[in-house]
């Protein structure tokens, strides 16, 4: 064993398997404590907002302070429903993956508010550039879970025609951009989309999401910079769920520095938000969207949250972090917090909640059954493999035509031989 005398600093991970969860590093402001400046405020003035934590819901579930968006109960109930639907959908899809029905899945457990609240705070004309953990944006915008399931199954109704890994959805009609497997690439694309909106004189804005780990990529920097230079109407979201697969947020530069602070550092407004507080996420997103739409430029919003589950179905977090950290997470569960708030308002109760849950489970189960009827990757109806040659280009060029013919001959031979290898 060759250890050498090293002076290299290595970020500290708060707790490893077998140790007690330790979230003392998370800087938390009391609910209602952070001021809400006007949307046209100078970037410099947002420096404290990028360090403190914008929170609306207090421990009792009351909404307090200047960031309270004062949403009507119907909107709150819709948000609760969509967060819960996201969770029910996630749980179900996770199980189907375990059963081998789909090849891969990514849950957003514990982070539902980040997506669902944003979907409500943005306008339908605004273009969203999600990461793979923003299924809540699709659900919040009304993409049927059936459509998502068909994509997961790569079946005959798959919006991606079988070409993408599960969860790499898109929904052009609802203005949700195609998700990429390559981290952070959507970030400068969102800025370009927003620049185009400005060039065309439209007042749609763009919004994009990346995980805190992905902020290390070049695309994060390019997006921030182009947004700054052209004052692009875009909202740039960093979902700081503390982990990037096995790597703690300190390895993305989070030690003693918020991610939101990079906004003002480069000349964008910055907000650090309690990502498990539906109202805070809504309010911060609405503020940033209004700011962008009014021509004051982009905002970098850090959503502080926690990845309650595994990174994906290929991951086992018990190898690198204590089991059951989530209950110790100081910002709680976004679903429970909004539920408590609604109950406090007298707009909700446990019975209705149980009924909603049951209804959503039925809805998801029914959708799943229907999705399976369009085929799975293992059995049932299948997309024509020759589809694999479409959309490489708009028009099939001769070499792909030839290859498609070759494939068809090969498949015919396989059918003849009775084996496709």
């Amino acid at each position: 064993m060759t250890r050498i005398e090293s002076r290299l600093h290595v970020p500290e991970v708060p707790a490893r398997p077998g140790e007690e969860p330790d979230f003392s590093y998370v800087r938390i402001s009391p609910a209602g404590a952070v001021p809400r400046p006007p949307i046209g405020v100078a970037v410099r003035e947002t420096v404290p907002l990028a360090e403190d934590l914008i929170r609306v819901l207090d421990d009792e579930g009351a909404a307090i302070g200047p960031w309270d968006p004062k949403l009507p109960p119907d909107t709150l109930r819709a948000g609760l429903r969509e967060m819960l639907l996201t969770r029910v959908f996630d749980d179900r899809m996770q199980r189907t993956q375990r059963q081998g029905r789909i090849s891969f899945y990514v849950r957003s457990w514990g982070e539902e508010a980040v997506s669902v609240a944003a979907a409500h705070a943005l306008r339908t004309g605004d273009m969203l550039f999600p990461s793979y953990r923003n299924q809540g944006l699709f659900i919040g915008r009304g993409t049927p879970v059936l459509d998502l399931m068909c994509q997961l199954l790569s079946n005959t109704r798959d919006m991606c025609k079988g070409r993408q890994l599960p969860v790499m959805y898109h929904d052009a009609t609802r203005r949700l951009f195609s998700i990429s497997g390559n981290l952070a690439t959507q970030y400068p694309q969102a800025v370009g989309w927003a620049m185009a909106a400005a060039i065309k004189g439209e007042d749609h804005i763009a919004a994009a999401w990346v995980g805190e780990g992905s902020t290390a990529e070049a695309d994060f920097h390019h997006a921030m910079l182009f947004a700054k230079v052209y004052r692009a109407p875009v909202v740039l979201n960093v979902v700081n769920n503390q982990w990037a697969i096995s790597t703690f947020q300190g390895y993305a530069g989070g030690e003693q520095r918020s991610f939101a602070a990079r906004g003002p550092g480069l000349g964008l407004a910055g907000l650090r938000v309690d990502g498990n507080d539906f109202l805070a996420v809504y309010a911060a997103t609405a503020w940033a969207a209004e700011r962008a739409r009014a021509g004051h430029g982009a905002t970098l919003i850090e959503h502080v949250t926690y990845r309650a589950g595994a990174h994906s179905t290929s991951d086992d977090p018990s190898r690198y972090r204590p089991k059951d950290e989530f209950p110790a997470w100081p910002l709680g569960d976004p679903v429970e917090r909004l539920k408590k708030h609604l109950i406090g308002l007298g707009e909700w109760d446990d019975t209705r909640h149980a009924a909603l849950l049951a209804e959503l489970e039925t809805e998801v189960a029914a959708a799943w059954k229907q999705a399976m009827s369009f085929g799975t990757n293992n059995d049932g109806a299948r997309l024509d493999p020759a589809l694999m040659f479409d959309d490489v280009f708009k028009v099939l060029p001769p070499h792909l035509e030839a290859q498609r013919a070759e494939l068809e001959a090969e498949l015919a031979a396989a059918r003849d031989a009775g084996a496709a290898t």
Partner: protein
Amino acid sequence: MTAMSMVQALNSAMEVMLARDPRVVILGEDVGYFGGVFRATEGLQSRYGAHRVIDTPIAEGGIVGAAIGMAANGLRPVAEIQFADYIYPAYDQIVSELARMRYRSAAAFTAPVTIRTPCGGGIRGGQTHSQSPEGVFAHVSGLKVVMPSNPYDAKGMLIAAIEDDDPVIFFEPKRLYNGPFDGDPHKAAESWAGHPMGDVPEGHYTVPIGKAAVVRAGNAVTVVTYGTMVHVCLAAVADLGLDAEVVDVRSMVPLDIDTLAASVAKTGRCLIAHEATRFGGYGAELSASLQERCFWHLQAPIQRVAGWDTPYPHAFEWEYFPGRLRVRRALEALMQVSA
């Protein structure tokens, strides 16, 4: 028709498209007020405004990333990468995103971006201003890759590229910007004026992407080439008084293999010439494809002439460059072989 240099022809193509199509925007380093380090965008910002001819930060990845987003929002961005040697920071956005946007979204989103970039040597640019990286794009499914060799094609192909609904990587052999170049660096520089392909219509026209051009008919041997090497090969063929057919590939992807194969089937001999390094270069694909198609017609092995497999060295530019002598020697050797 007007006499135009290749730079002027490219400028004219962009001007025509800016005027015709409000969706067209130009972006890149120094392309705006200044008009580009090679003057390809000269005058365009003053005529079409700083919102359509856009100076950018020095971030090739950002330029392409933003262009993809613009295209997804209905614009037709023409991005300039100042030198092809500096396109690599954008490689991920090009390969992982631009090339596959239509595919992965089953055409729900597309990215009709044109990326213009000057390539090739011969201007004393050393290893970082001389590269010909077409090979590392031609291998990527979903990209169209082209390289014109004269002003007429340059304008027509650039308009075709901008109008194309697929992304196009548009390589411009910078040694040809101001005149044809036959490989002799010691001669006075030639101008495009007077060259038949330097006669360019002022208005809109296209040269289709996906079509090679037989630039010299012949029967003894086929020379398959593109870019600057078209002129070098023509000169070498003339030097030798050879009855060679010279084919300008023009479009690397899609490749007009039929035109190439027809010629090789006819002549039975083939020399492939490009400026890029030889190993694993685009010439390898040409050789492999033509061999597959024309094997029974070949009277000699297909040969390649290319840049050596080294970076492009500043002091040895002309020993590196696959010049007339190298082409001549290869042709002589090829003609001596008898089946």
